[in-house]
């Protein structure tokens, strides 16, 4: 996916402005914010929740939350789309994890099984997502196991135990893959000056 940095910067500035106005209860700015970001955010929610009713609900809750708490977004600290995506991802993950507690393992099994026939695969996404920037170099330094575990966790919201079941590896192995993978990513990204 080619991302033009200048256009991205312009889009970020626009989103920041819309968030600032949303914080002041400007409803038309809020609507533009929704128009500019909802399909990306809905895609993220669908990817993790794999169920349109749940994804719609999360999108709705997230934007109602943004309306009330846009003031807590601090422009200097993170990119607006990062912030918005985090709001949506966190709600998706909270919902998934709650489901883990509430339901028996059969659901987990189905969850893990369902991943196999979905496309594009998390691993492809991981690499194409990283394509446009230095993140790719860092992702590529990861070993196959950690790379796959992180892709499945990030794009599908799989927990440690779901990862273990899906990858058919012991829980301890998967946990250490994730931990080591993240450590490695951090060292690489921070070292490359990608992270601010």
């Amino acid at each position: 996916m080619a991302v033009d940095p200048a256009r991205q910067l312009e889009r970020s500035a626009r989103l920041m402005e819309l968030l600032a106005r949303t914080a002041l209860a400007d409803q038309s700015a809020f609507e533009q914010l929704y128009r500019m970001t909802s399909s990306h955010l809905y895609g993220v929610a669908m990817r993790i929740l794999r169920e349109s009713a749940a994804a719609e609900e999360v999108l709705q809750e997230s934007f109602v939350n943004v309306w009330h708490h846009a003031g807590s977004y601090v422009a200097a600290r993170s990119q607006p789309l990062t912030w918005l995506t985090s709001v949506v991802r966190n709600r998706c993950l909270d919902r998934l994890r709650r489901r883990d507690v509430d339901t028996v393992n059969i659901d987990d099994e189905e969850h893990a099984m369902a991943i196999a026939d979905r496309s594009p695969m998390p691993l492809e996404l991981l690499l194409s997502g990283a394509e446009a920037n230095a993140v790719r170099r860092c992702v590529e330094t990861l070993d196959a196991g950690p790379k796959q575990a992180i892709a499945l966790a990030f794009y599908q919201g799989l927990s440690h135990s779901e990862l273990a079941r899906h990858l058919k590896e012991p829980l301890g192995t998967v946990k250490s893959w994730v931990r080591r993978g993240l450590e490695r990513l951090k060292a690489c990204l921070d070292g490359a000056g990608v992270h601010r």
Partner: protein
Amino acid sequence: MNYRTPERADALAAQYVLGTMPARARARFARLARSDGVLADAIRAWEDRLSPLGQSVPPIEPPGRVWTAILARIDRGRVASAAERRTVWASVSLWRGLALAGFATAIALVLVLLSPPLEAPEARLVVVLAGQDAKPALIASAGRSGRLLTIKAVTPLSPGADRSLQLWALPATGNPRSLGLVPASGIAQIALPVAAGSALENIPALAVSLEPRGGSPTGLPTGPVLYSGPVQRLY
């Protein structure tokens, strides 16, 4: 769980952001991060690191009912919480008003151009502030290099005895900035800290809100916007 060492806090933040933390640990960590700046910073840093990966997720257009539901929920909240306390930004009509003000501006330009020049024609900034009915109510103008913003009402203003009208600069980003109060007579000269061309640079529009007597106590608009208009740069 021990969150106290920076390494541990960072590793947990990474797991939290990636999403692999089990439900109970996740809820507890989120709760702690709300009151712990170090954890909150670690989470934010991981969100920054991992977010480029999210760009490749194929976008999906959500059904129209999602926006309808969002709108219904925020409207209900607003009516319940503050029927009258609309902020300057609350009205969609502000921006609709700005669009309609295009017509009003044309009239103002004619007025400005027809008025006999006192000196050599000068680059000017002109703002026609119109109400929601798009009828011009005030004209604000200043020479580009002048430091006085002249306000003239073209309709009678009646803010009420215990109210004031306050003029605001609406920047492209960030909060509105007060330019001063507009007297009930509707005629005023407002001193600008620097030349108008600079003072109103990056200010796409001005607005007048209805405030408690003496002006907004918060430094931001608290009452409804009565008039607004785009800043026209005649140079």
